[in-house]
């Protein structure tokens, strides 16, 4: 089935991931210049921004796989959705923490309720909801489909949530300090970010495939045991 194919694919993604991470770090730290406004603190963006993008991208991907799995009764697609969830949540967590660590030296506080950080926090909640829901349902079929509904409802709501958070943020602009956005992007900075993004993507594929194989194994084992017990 897909299991051995997935196994063969993993090194093809794991090794480039490592290389890209090294390359990205090199460009980011050795070639990109020190920023005029933020000094060297800005170098956090080379992990913060790719992580944020991956968090969002993986959520959408997860919803798509879950939806396809539900609509076409394709178990592999549903398993893929479950496999994506934790990695996506992890990247979102990285984004939140690195965002906080970037915030302290640049804006003075670890946490700022701006549109981006708040939306990322809400995305984290959405991931946690999906993971918790699947974890509390024993029947795999129900878990797959329930997850699909939750993910689809979530993905439809994400633009609404993002819009409402933007709205909320601009309303209270007067009370909060005006935030300095990303530094003006010099070419090496953009290059480093893109390389790191590619690295994160390759890493995600490798890790998700590993998890997918675990899920496949678990389901086969449970099915086998079920057959034994009921033989």
């Amino acid at each position: 089935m897909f299991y051995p194919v997935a196994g063969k694919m993993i090194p093809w993604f794991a090794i480039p991931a490592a290389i890209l991470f090294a390359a990205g770090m090199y460009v980011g730290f050795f070639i990109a210049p020190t920023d005029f406004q933020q000094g060297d603190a800005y170098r956090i963006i080379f992990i913060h921004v790719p992580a944020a993008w991956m968090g969002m991208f993986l959520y959408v991907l997860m919803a798509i796989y879950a939806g396809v799995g539900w609509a076409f009764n394709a178990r592999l697609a549903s398993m893929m959705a479950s496999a994506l969830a934790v990695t996506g949540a992890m990247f979102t967590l990285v984004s939140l923490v690195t965002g906080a660590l970037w915030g302290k030296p640049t804006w003075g506080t670890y946490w700022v309720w701006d549109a981006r950080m708040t939306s990322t926090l809400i995305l984290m909640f959405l991931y946690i909801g999906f993971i918790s829901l699947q974890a509390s349902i024993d029947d795999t079929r129900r878990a797959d489909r329930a997850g699909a509904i939750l993910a689809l409802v979530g993905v439809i709501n994400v633009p609404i949530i993002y819009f409402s958070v933007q709205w909320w943020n601009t309303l209270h602009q007067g009370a909060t300090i005006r935030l300095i956005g990303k530094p003006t992007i010099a070419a090496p900075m953009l290059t480093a970010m893109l390389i790191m993004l590619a690295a994160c993507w390759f890493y995600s594929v490798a890790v998700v495939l590993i998890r997918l194989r675990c899920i496949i194994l678990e389901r086969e084992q449970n099915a086998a045991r079920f057959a034994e017990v009921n033989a």
Partner: protein
Amino acid sequence: MDWPDLSMGKYGFYVWGSYLFSLLLFVWEILSLKQRKRALKQQQQQQRSSPVSPKVFTGSANETTS
């Protein structure tokens, strides 16, 4: 190769802290997956060697964690 200012102009804690945290999470993810795989392989061996022993379901196949 021109080494950059490794203290990141006194922001070292934040910059290196960020990368360290991220690295720790990646490592944790990979290690916990490896462990999960190993446990599954063990169970598979046990199942093969004692085929007619109905076992209690240990853990849900819906585990998205680790």
